[in-house]
């Protein structure tokens, strides 16, 4: 597959693990934004883990994407060339030492960021801190040994050594990407993390404005992954272990992503969240309050409004979860809820419409759960489906996620007249019950339940499906809410202001 390349572009979108290779809410949003601004030429920098983790692109590139490049952070970790011994640049390692001392909790964040910036500059090709020095030099070895003795509470040096290497090596790859990127006027990152680090590095070296739009909160999501992960080892024995203390390697990874987040927040302006709780979380994680703002998602009503006429008179007893089959969507809670739904409404069906290739092990678990609950005849895995085809056939959209921001699928359901039952995550309560008094006056457009509570999810769904009047009222409320508050026009107008402001600050405009 060939991708476009160009000499220059207006906006570089920095995308980590999303559009165009992964389908989902963030990818749809990116697609929307690119197509909404045909007057700008976009460059896309896709950052992934390994090439083999992604299939073919899920979205065709819009015509105004003039440049596309993909980089895989964990491919080619091992050098093909024979490594040679080297002493390493003492001054560069003194800088790193100084930076780590400023990372201590009692030191001011501003001075730590200043040190971080100077180290990051040295990581660029031509700088004093090279990847080969990090991997093979004596100075690097000395520093790793010294930090292990002073800080590490896990007895395994081997694990510590490899954790340090694997954690930091992708940063040099990103420094190379930053150096080689085509000239652009504005940078737009859709997360902190590695993409945010790249954005901040580019902002620092080229003085180009960096816009940050966060759907979920990257640092928080990584933190939860790290708490849960089974691959991070804890080698402490029963005498060394404090049961209230997280294993040292988990703490290292969490600290790493927290500092990447702060580095990005420090460089970005504006910092956009989808709703207030996420904005406050960004501020708590180090984003300067004055640079933050909320821009809610919106959808194209014209795409979904005609579907209302296709609905049957009675709500179909079909509960549909539209989304990727991944742990964060907690598909298993939906399957468990279906056990209770089917006990109460034997004709009910549960549909899971979304790709299963992103986390195959999890998808296998979901299939196994369907079998172990005896739901083979009631739960169907449909794979990726066109939302427009599904909407007239379903009675409810179900969102059982454990974490969300402002899910487009709820809004799409509303626009097609389909109410929702959702978990109380992200801005879902605001989408179902309303935000302010005027919004609440519209009435509930579905129901909200706690996370991981299949009983409550099933009861709420059955209550809506079994009561035609309540279902119609929720459907009307959903249509009214999406038409009044969540159209793509509103979102595009806000982003037009964001881009106009950024272009006015770019070096060429000054």
């Amino acid at each position, binding site marked *: 597959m060939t991708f476009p390349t160009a000499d220059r572009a207006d906006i570089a979108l920095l995308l980590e693990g999303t559009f165009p290779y992964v389908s989902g809410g963030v990818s749809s949003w990116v697609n929307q934004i690119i197509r909404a601004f045909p007057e700008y030429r976009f460059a896309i920098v896709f950052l992934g883990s390994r090439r083999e983790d992604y299939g073919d692109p899920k979205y065709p590139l819009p015509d105004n994407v003039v440049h596309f490049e993909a980089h895989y952070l964990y491919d080619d970790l091992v050098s093909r060339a024979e490594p040679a011994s080297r002493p390493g640049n003492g001054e560069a390692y003194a800088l790193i030492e100084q930076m780590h001392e400023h990372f201590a909790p009692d030191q001011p964040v501003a001075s730590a960021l200043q040190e971080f910036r100077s180290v990051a500059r040295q990581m660029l090709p031509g700088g004093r801190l090279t990847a080969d020095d990090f991997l093979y030099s004596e100075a690097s070895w000395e520093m790793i040994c010294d930090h292990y003795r002073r800080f590490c509470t896990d007895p395994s040096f081997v694990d510590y050594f490899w954790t340090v290497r694997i954690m930091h090596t992708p940063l040099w790859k990103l420094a190379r990407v930053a150096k080689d990127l085509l000239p652009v006027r504005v940078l737009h990152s859709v997360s902190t993390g590695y993409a945010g680090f790249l954005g901040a590095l580019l902002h620092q070296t080229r003085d180009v404005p960096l816009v940050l739009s966060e759907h979920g909160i990257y640092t928080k999501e990584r933190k939860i992954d790290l708490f*849960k992960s089974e691959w991070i080892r804890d080698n402490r024995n029963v005498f060394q272990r404090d049961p209230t203390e997280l294993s040292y390697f988990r703490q290292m990874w969490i600290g790493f992503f927290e500092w990447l987040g702060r580095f990005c927040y420090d460089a970005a302006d504006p910092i956009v969240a989808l709703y207030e709780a996420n904005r406050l979380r960004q501020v708590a994680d180090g984003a300067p309050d004055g640079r933050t703002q909320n821009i809610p998602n919106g959808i194209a009503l014209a795409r979904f409004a005609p579907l209302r006429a296709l609905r049957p008179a009675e709500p179909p007893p079909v509960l549909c979860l539209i989304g990727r089959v991944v*742990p964060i969507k907690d598909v298993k809670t939906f399957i468990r809820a279906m*056990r209770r739904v089917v006990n109460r409404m034997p004709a009910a069906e549960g549909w899971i419409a979304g790709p299963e290739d992103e986390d195959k092990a999890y998808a296998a678990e979901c299939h196994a759960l369907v079998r172990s609950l005896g739901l083979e005849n009631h739960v169907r895995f449909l794979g990726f489906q066109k939302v427009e085809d599904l909407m007239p056939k379903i009675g409810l959209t179900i969102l059982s996620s*454990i974490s969300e921001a402002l899910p487009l699928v709820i809004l799409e359901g509303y626009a097609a007249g389909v109410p929702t039952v959702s978990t109380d995550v992200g801005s879902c309560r605001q989408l179902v019950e309303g935000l302010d008094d005027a919004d609440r006056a519209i009435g509930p457009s579905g129901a909200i339940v706690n996370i991981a*509570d299949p009983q409550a999810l099933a009861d709420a769904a059955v209550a809506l499906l079994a009561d035609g009047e309540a279902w119609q009222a929720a459907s009307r409320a959903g249509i009214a809410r999406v038409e009044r508050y969540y159209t793509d026009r509103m979102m595009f107008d806000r982003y037009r202001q964001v881009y106009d402001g950024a272009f006015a600050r770019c070096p060429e405009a000054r």
Partner: protein
Amino acid sequence: MLNAKLGLSAALLEINAWSGPLLFESNSDLVLLWYLGGHALASLLLAAFVQALLPPTRTRPRWATLLLLAGFSYAVPIAGFVCVLAGSLLLRFYKLTPAAGSFESLQLPDFDPHLRSQGVFRQAGLRSILNNSQVPMHTRLGAMVALQYVPGRVASPLLRDVLSDPAEDIRLLAYGMLDNQEKRINRAIDDELQQFGQATTDAARLAAAQRLSDLYWELVYQRLALGDLRQYAIDESLRYCEQVLAEHPASAAMILRRGRLRHEQGDYAAAEADYRQAQALGLPATRVLPYLAEARFEQRDFAGASRLVQELSAWNSLPRLRPIVDYWTRA
């Protein structure tokens, strides 16, 4: 009857006391003494009559009340007599409603254990720290991390409590931990279902059925399945258990399992029959008696529960059961 006699005697004596001065028409000391003596005796009898009429709460201390009533009717001739009678009748038939309390109701002060210095979380401490959203986040996260080392049966309800916590980090971590526990069992169930389906010999099929019964029971025991799912897990465990018992009707362990499952279903009579049978087949009393006692307790037969626990105390039971044995066998 005695009361009526006392009252009648008091009235007659009083009339008798007054009759002296009226009959003898004399002002001699003897007449006065006649009157005072008769009046005193009449007052005393009246006091005794009235005291018996009044509710006991109003006549304590008894001797002082008796003397007061007698003294009053003695010191105020006629009127005192009438008033004591009228007052006692009033007290007997008119019950005062208690005056409205002037105290305001107050909340008990909250016990906030994180403010006390403590190095380790005991189980109760862990629960209060997890449920208190005012406790600093790192302390709560520490409590969550410590839960990894707590048995699943204890940890699951604690984790489920914090699933609706306002802090998303806590919520998600609790979810992840519960999910990991459940995942392990469900993965094993799926493997065993395949083994069961592909088994070519009866022995392999039965071994798989026994493991499936164990695994579904584990979901119930670890409190990982709730509501309909719990019911489903119980039904499945019972179904596979029955399959094993059909082939091996004398398997004490499986009969005990069937008893536990029927117990969970609320079928106590059948559960007890299984427990008894398991014991008869050789299971030690210390494994069976606690369940029998629990079944009795749940049927509100406390005497039966106590008797069974007493029986248990004769055995060297598990140290964890010691406090329960002590409680139920206390004289």
